[in-house]
């Protein structure tokens, strides 16, 4: 059974090797430190990979594995993160500030009252503090950005 931790280690190893190749083209002074660091990383990652392979051969289903296995709940929150980024991109900052709490609370089956109150309070809070008081440029997002041109 391939454990997630093994895959992760492997990915880190691949990334390090790629970085190693990238480092080759740098001038000497710019190369020394990165090489030391990448070299260390690669050696240790190889050792770790071997350790992981040996461990997975033992096939002892431990408590820890349960926590490591990425299940449906992970997928859900992962999708939420992606959705948040999309919201940010499209609706902009204020839009996300209002919509995210609302959507999340509703889809977690909280009451309408709570969802709306929280969203509006967030909206008010962020707008007053950052938009008005601090005059931060609140990213408008693609949707509302259209209006300004």
């Amino acid at each position: 059974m391939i454990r997630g931790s093994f895959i992760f280690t492997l990915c880190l190893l691949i990334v390090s090797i790629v970085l190693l190749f990238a480092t080759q083209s740098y001038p000497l002074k710019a190369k020394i430190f990165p090489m030391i660091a990448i070299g260390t990383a690669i050696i240790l990652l190889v050792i770790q990979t071997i350790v992981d392979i040996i461990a997975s051969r033992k096939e002892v289903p431990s408590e820890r594995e349960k926590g490591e296995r990425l299940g449906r709940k992970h997928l859900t929150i992962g999708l939420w993160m992606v959705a948040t980024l999309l919201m940010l991109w499209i609706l902009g900052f204020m839009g996300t500030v209002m919509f995210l709490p609302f959507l999340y609370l509703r889809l977690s089956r909280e009451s309408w009252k709570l969802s709306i109150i929280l969203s509006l309070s967030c909206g008010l809070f962020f707008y007053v503090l950052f938009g008005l008081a601090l005059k931060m440029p609140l990213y408008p997002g693609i949707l509302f950005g259209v209006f300004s041109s």
Partner: protein
Amino acid sequence: MTEGFLQGITNVFNPTMLLYMFLGVIIGLIVGILPGLGGVATLAILLPVVYGMNPAFALAFLIAIHATVYQGGAITSILFGIPGETATTATILDGYPMAQQGKAGRALANSQVASMLGGIFGAVILAAFIPIAKPIVLAFGSPELFMMAVMGISFVAFLSQRSTIKAFITGALGLILSLVGFHHGTGALRYTGGIIYFYEGVKMVPVFMGLFAIPEVIEMAVGGETIAKVAGSDVRWGDIIQGIKDVFHHWWLMIRCSTIGTIIGIIPGVGGVVAQFMCYGHAKQTSKRAEEFGKGCEEGVIATQSGDNAKEGGALLTTLAFGIPGSSAMVIILGAMMVLGIKPGPEMITKHLDILWTLVITLIMSNVIASLIGLMAARPLARLTFAKGTILIPVILLLVILGAYGVSNDITDVFMAFAFGALGYLMKIYDYSRVTFTISFVLGDYVERYFLISLTSLGPGFLLVSPIAVILLILTILGLAGAPLKRLLKKSRNRRQKQGV
């Protein structure tokens, strides 16, 4: 000398002054609590407001804001596992686990009192040492800074929770991350992939936010209902009083970390973010309960917080003695001083002694006021950890977005934060230490930079030139040898015990 002091006291205990100080403290606390809103940006925004004010009031106001952000930052770090300030990230390491064990009240008390005492320590050093500030500041040149950064990175050796190999791996990777960008020595662009966003390196705030805050959000969504996993317990005054007692119990630790913090504050070449990790590493290194670190040991909170606040006294020392700002916040405070007609340098000690004392006393008073407010708010705030996850998750996500965005008003930072969030979560569940990654990330650049400067300006024997550097080298070696030595001693003691009775 004493008239300056008395004048300082009179200045500070003026009602308007106290009002401004109080206002500054409140603003500082709020700024600290809100991730992303940094002390520096706030100071810059408030600078115009300050222009028309009476000089002493204005300066006190600014200092009050600046010195107290760590009390605020600690609150967010402990309660939510999100760095309220980049400088309070290390507080998360033990503060958040304490909150999860239902000990939020105690952790908060730890942080507020440690901050207060650390801040007072820094202020006292400021007052005491300003006449001899110059030699102190000048004593720390490139070789010394190089050794200090090396020592910091050596902490990687024993800051790991479980797997040492994995800690070193992330340590190495963090170092590489710190080298991304334009290399000043050779003009080479390293690991940027041609993307201009990376030219000046990967920004700290999105990385910190992502690595530490987002994995907590994911955990909350997947696992628990509330942050505090211990059901049924509430925050009692007893917890808070215990927290206060803790700091006095560990008073020697607090003094040591305040010293470290002050020194780091004095040195202009090193950012304030470093102080927390140096203090944390030192605390773990010297603690009898080192295994508890990372699982909710109050020493971890006390160490980082006292170091943070102490460094402000140090930074002010360099700024006032030399007119050379020790940090970006000091740049602004320096600017304010110039606008108000106060010239730092020898004039401070000759002409403006009363202003100096005003600043020192303001520093002390604002730390005290901030911590008192923090303590009083500890109970209601700690209750938040018992709030439902469904409410907290979107709010925390918004704060993370704000935090990442607020750095340079660049939406790309938010995407970076989320990317590091994913990485951070994977690191968390697969046992790769995020702390060692962060330490290397913060210090890696300094190591290389000061190594190259020392080498080119002083030649290969640069370490031997400086006694301080040699001392730091010895301390580092001792630190590295210390842990395995301790283990060997323990093993042999256990063996002897088994054989004995």
